[in-house]
C-alpha cells in the first residue's frame, strides 16, 4: 500500500536550510498571546526521502510525455520543453506584479504582442490575458456582454442560449454571472437545431454561447445564419475557444460573426495541463465590446508600454494581478516559433489526424456522424452493451495497453460516448497502433469480456470505488 508523505514522517528530520541568523535579529519576539497554540501537523522528512516520495508518485501518473493521450476536447499536444526553459528565465520569473512599469517593459511587450497575435488569429480587435482559465474567460466575456446590454438599457436580457452538447462550464459561467441558461437542441446531423434556435431567440436573449467546431467535432456550416438570427434579436455571440485548434488561421471566430471569445492557451497554444492547471484563458472581442474588457490593460505610447489600472466602462478586475503570466509567456513563445504559417499547419494536421483515425475506427465502432470531422470525433461505443461492456470498460482497458483513454460520456447526448482527439503532433504509426489496440480490445470483448469489464489490470490500482469515496469522504490525512 502506498503511504502518504504524512505517514512517512520521522521525528526531528527535515530538508530545509535558512540564511544565517544574526544577533541583530534575535532580540525580536512576537507577542506570546498571539502565537499558534499547537504546531501544524506537518510531516518531518529529509530531502532524500522527499525526493523519492515524489519520484514514486510520478511513477503512478501518466502524461503526454509518456503516452498517446487522445482525450477529446482537451487538446493534449506536446508541451515543448523550450517553453519551460523560457518561463524559468529569471528576468521574467523575478518580476513583481506591482513593479514600476518602466522596469517590466519586457513583460508588457509580451502581453501587448500576444494579444495582437491572438486577435489576428481569431479575427478579433482587442483582448485581455487576465483570465486564468477557460471558464474564467467565459465569466469575463459574459460580464462584458451584460455591461454592453446594460449600457443600452437592455437589462431585461437575462437569458443565455447554450446548445445541449456544450461544455458544462458554459451554463455554470452563465449562472455565476447572474444569467439563466436555455438549452438548444442539436439536430440529427449534429448541428444546432435552427428551428429551435429561432423559437428561443428573443429580446430576452443576452447571447448565444457556441463552440465551433462543436463538442461532436463538427463545424457548423450554418454559422452565418445562426449569427444573423441572434444579432437580429439584439443578442451577441460568444465563442468557446476550447476547439480552436481545428481552425487556426483557417477561419477566425470574428469572421464567423462572434463578438467575444476565450482561448484556452493550455490547449491550443501548448502550455502544460499540469494535472489540472494552471491554464490561461485570454478573452478577445470586437470593437462593440472593447471598452468593457477587464483591467489591468497594457497600452503603448511613445515612451513605451504602460499599464492601465482602471477604465471607466471596464467590467473591472477579475483576478489579483495580470493573470497567469508564467503560462501565457509560454504561449507567446509557441506562437512565435510557429508564426502564422505554422499555426495553419497545426489546424490542417490535427484535422487530418482526426479524420484518419475516424476512418479506421469506423470499422470497429458506430460513428454517429459520418461527415468529415474537424480535430476530434465521437464514437458511439454501444455495440457490446449486450455483453455488458460499456465505454467506461473500453477506456479502462486502453490504459492496460499503454494509451490514455479518450473522453467518455461527453457530450451527454451520445450514448456510450467516446470523444477522441489526436492532436497534430501524433505520427501515423501512433495512430495505427491505437487502432490495433482498439481492434484487440474488440476481439477480447467477443472472446472474454470479463477481462475488459474488470480492467485495468496493470495499473497501480484496480478500478476504484468512487461511490464509497463520496459516501463517507476522507479528504485529508488524519492521525485518528
Amino acid at each position, binding site marked *: 500500500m502506498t503511504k*502518504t508523505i504524512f505517514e512517512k514522517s520521522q521525528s526531528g528530520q527535515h530538508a*530545509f536550510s535558512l540564511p544565517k541568523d*544574526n544577533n541583530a535579529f*534575535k532580540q*525580536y519576539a*512576537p507577542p506570546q498571546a498571539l502565537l*499558534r497554540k499547537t504546531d*501544524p501537523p*506537518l510531516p518531518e522528512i529529509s530531502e532524500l526521502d*522527499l*525526493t523519492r516520495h*515524489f519520484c514514486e*508518485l*510520478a511513477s503512478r*501518473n501518466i502524461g*503526454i*510525455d*509518456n503516452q498517446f493521450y487522445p482525450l477529446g476536447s482537451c487538446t493534449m499536444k506536446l508541451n515543448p520543453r*523550450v517553453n519551460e526553459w523560457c518561463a524559468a528565465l529569471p528576468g521574467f520569473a*523575478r518580476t*513583481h*506584479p*506591482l513593479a514600476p512599469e518602466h522596469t517590466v*517593459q519586457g513583460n508588457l511587450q509580451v502581453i501587448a504582442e500576444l494579444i495582437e497575435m491572438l486577435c489576428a488569429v481569431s479575427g478579433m480587435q482587442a483582448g485581455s490575458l487576465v483570465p*486564468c482559465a*477557460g*471558464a474564467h474567460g467565459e465569466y469575463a466575456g459574459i460580464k462584458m456582454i451584460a455591461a454592453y446590454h446594460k449600457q443600452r438599457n437592455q437589462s431585461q436580457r437575462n437569458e443565455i442560449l447554450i446548445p445541449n452538447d456544450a461544455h*458544462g*462550464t458554459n451554463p455554470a459561467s452563465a449562472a455565476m*454571472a*447572474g444569467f439563466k441558461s436555455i438549452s438548444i437542441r442539436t439536430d440529427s446531423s449534429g448541428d444546432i437545431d435552427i428551428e429551435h434556435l429561432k423559437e428561443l431567440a428573443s429580446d430576452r436573449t443576452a447571447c448565444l454561447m457556441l463552440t465551433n467546431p462543436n463538442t461532436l467535432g463538427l463545424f457548423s456550416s450554418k454559422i452565418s445564419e445562426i449569427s444573423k438570427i441572434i444579432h437580429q434579436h439584439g443578442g451577441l455571440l460568444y465563442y468557446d475557444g476550447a476547439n480552436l485548434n481545428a481552425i487556426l*488561421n483557417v477561419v477566425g471566430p470574428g469572421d464567423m460573426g462572434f463578438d467575444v471569445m476565450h482561448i484556452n492557451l493550455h490547449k491550443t497554444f501548448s502550455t502544460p*495541463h499540469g*494535472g*489540472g492547471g494552471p491554464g490561461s484563458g485570454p478573452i478577445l472581442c470586437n470593437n462593440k465590446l472593447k471598452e468593457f474588457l477587464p483591467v489591468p490593460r497594457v497600452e503603448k505610447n511613445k515612451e513605451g508600454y504602460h499599464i492601465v489600472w482602471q477604465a471607466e466602462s471596464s467590467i473591472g478586475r*477579475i*483576478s*489579483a*494581478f495580470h493573470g497567469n*503570466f508564467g503560462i501565457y509567456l509560454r504561449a507567446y*513563445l509557441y506562437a512565435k516559433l510557429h*508564426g502564422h504559417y*505554422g499555426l495553419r499547419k*497545426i489546424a490542417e*494536421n490535427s484535422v*487530418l489526424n482526426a479524420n*484518419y483515425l475516424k*476512418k479506421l475506427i469506423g470499422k470497429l465502432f458506430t460513428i454517429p456522424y459520418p461527415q*468529415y470531422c474537424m480535430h476530434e470525433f465521437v464514437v458511439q461505443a454501444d455495440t457490446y452493451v449486450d455483453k455488458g461492456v460499456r465505454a467506461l470498460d473500453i477506456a479502462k482497458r486502453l490504459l492496460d495497453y499503454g494509451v490514455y483513454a479518450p473522453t467518455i460520456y461527453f457530450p451527454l447526448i451520445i450514448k456510450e460516448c467516446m470523444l477522441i482527439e489526436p492532436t497534430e503532433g501524433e505520427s*501515423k504509426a*501512433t495512430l495505427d497502433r491505437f487502432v490495433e489496440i482498439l481492434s484487440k480490445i474488440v476481439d477480447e470483448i467477443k472472446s472474454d469480456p470479463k477481462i475488459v469489464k474488470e480492467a485495468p489490470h496493470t*495499473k*497501480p*490500482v484496480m478500478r476504484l*470505488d468512487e461511490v*464509497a*469515496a463520496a459516501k463517507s*469522504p*476522507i479528504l*485529508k490525512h488524519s492521525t485518528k
Partner: protein
Amino acid sequence: MDFIANKEIQVQEMLKTIGVASIEELFCDIPTNLRRIAPAVDDGLSESEGMLLMEELSAKNTFPKFTSYLGGGAYEHHVPALVNAVCSKSEFLTSYTPYQAEASQGMLQAIFEYQSAVCALTGMDVSNASLYDGATACAEAILMALRLVKDRRKIVIARSLHPNYCAVIEQYLSSHDVEIEWISFKEDGSIDQSVALNLIDDQTVAVLLQYPNFFGVLDDVKSIAAKAKAHGALTIVNANPLVYALYASAEEIGADIAIGDTQPLGLPLHFGGPYVGYIACKQEFVRQMPGRIIGETVDSEGKRGFVLTLQAREQHIRREKATSNICTNQALAALASLVAILWYGKRGLKQLALTNYQRACYLKEKLSNLPGVKIMGNEPMFNEFAVKFSGNIEGIYSHFRSQGIEPGIDLGKFYPELAGYILIAVTETKSLEQLDRYVETARTIKASLGFG
C-alpha cells in the same frame, strides 16, 4: 518550426485512406467565403531564434536588478530547488485533470497531500484542490457563504483587505443581489473594532477579514468572529498561509472559511501568476465548496487509492447548478506549494516565519529611529509594515531607485488618505547588509531632495 510528426509521405498515405485528394477537402463544412488563404511564407522561428528572442525580452525587464521590498500579496521568498525538479517531471507537468483515476494516482495523491497540508496550516477540516488566486478565492468564499446562509444579503468586509481583492469581490458580487458594508481602519492601520462589531447583525451573511491585513497589522479577529457566530454569520479569513506557521491558525481565531494565496510557499513572483488560491472550511460546509476535491477510497481489491470526489458540486455534472464554474484550476502550482511546505516541514516553516518577522522588525525599528520618519503604527505585525518619510513621494522613490532599491508599495495609489505611506515587505531573502543599506538610503533622503 512546428511539432508536427507526419511529413508529405505519411500525409499522402493518410489522405488516400480517408479518400480525399487534399487536406483542404476536409474543411468542406467551413463556408468558402469564410475560409482564409493559407499563409504562403513561413514566418516562424527556429528554437534557437526563439530562445534568443525571449532572452532579449527578459533582459528588457530591469526589475530583477533592484533589491525589492514589494509585497502586498506577492512576496519574494526562496524557492527550494526541489520544487522545480518535482514540477518539471513529465508525469506531473504533462498530465491532464485526473479523470482516469487509475492512471493518475500520483497527481491525485499529491493533491490529497496538498489538501492535508492546507488543513494542517489553517486548522480547517477540508481544503479543495485549488482556485485561481487569493482574490478569486475571496469571491468564491463569499458566494459559498451566500449558499450557506440563506435569506440574508449583507456582506461585511474590511477595507484593510487587499484592495485588488476588494475589487475582484465587487466585480463578482455585481451580479448578485447583495450589499457590501465596509469596515474602516484606524490611523495605526488596525481594523476599527467598534465599527466591525456594529456592522454585524442578524442580516449579515459573512464577515471577511485579512490576517495580517494589507498594512501588515495582525488584527484581533477573534472577537469579531465571536460576534459573527452569535448572529449566525460566517467568518472568512484571508491570510498569507506562512503566517499560520507562527501565529494562531484560522481555526484558533474563529474562522469558518480560510482562504488566501499560497504564492509565498514555493511560487516565484512571475509578475502575478500562476499563484494558487486556497480555500478550506469546516466539515459541515464541504458540500458548498467550489472546485475539485480529492478523496481517499479503495479499489476492487481493497487497496487504497485516490479519486476526484463530491463531484455532484461541479460544473461537468451539475452545469448551471454547480457551486462554481471552475474547471481548470492551479494544480501544478499547488504541487509546487506542497513541495515547499514539505521541504520546510513542521519546524522549518515556523523558523521561516520567525525569520521573516524578525528581519521586518529590525528594519522597522531602525527606520523608526530616523528623524522625520513616521511608522504607521505599533500594532502586532508579521513581515510587512507601513512608513512615511518626509518629502515628496516621487523624490523619495527616485532616491531609493537611484540606489538600486525598490522601497515598497506606494499606498497613496490605493488609498488617497494614505498618500506618502510606503508599505514595506521584508522576507528571509534580505540580509543584514541590505537592510542596513535601506536604512542608510532613507537617512540620506533629505540631503538628496535638497532639504538638508
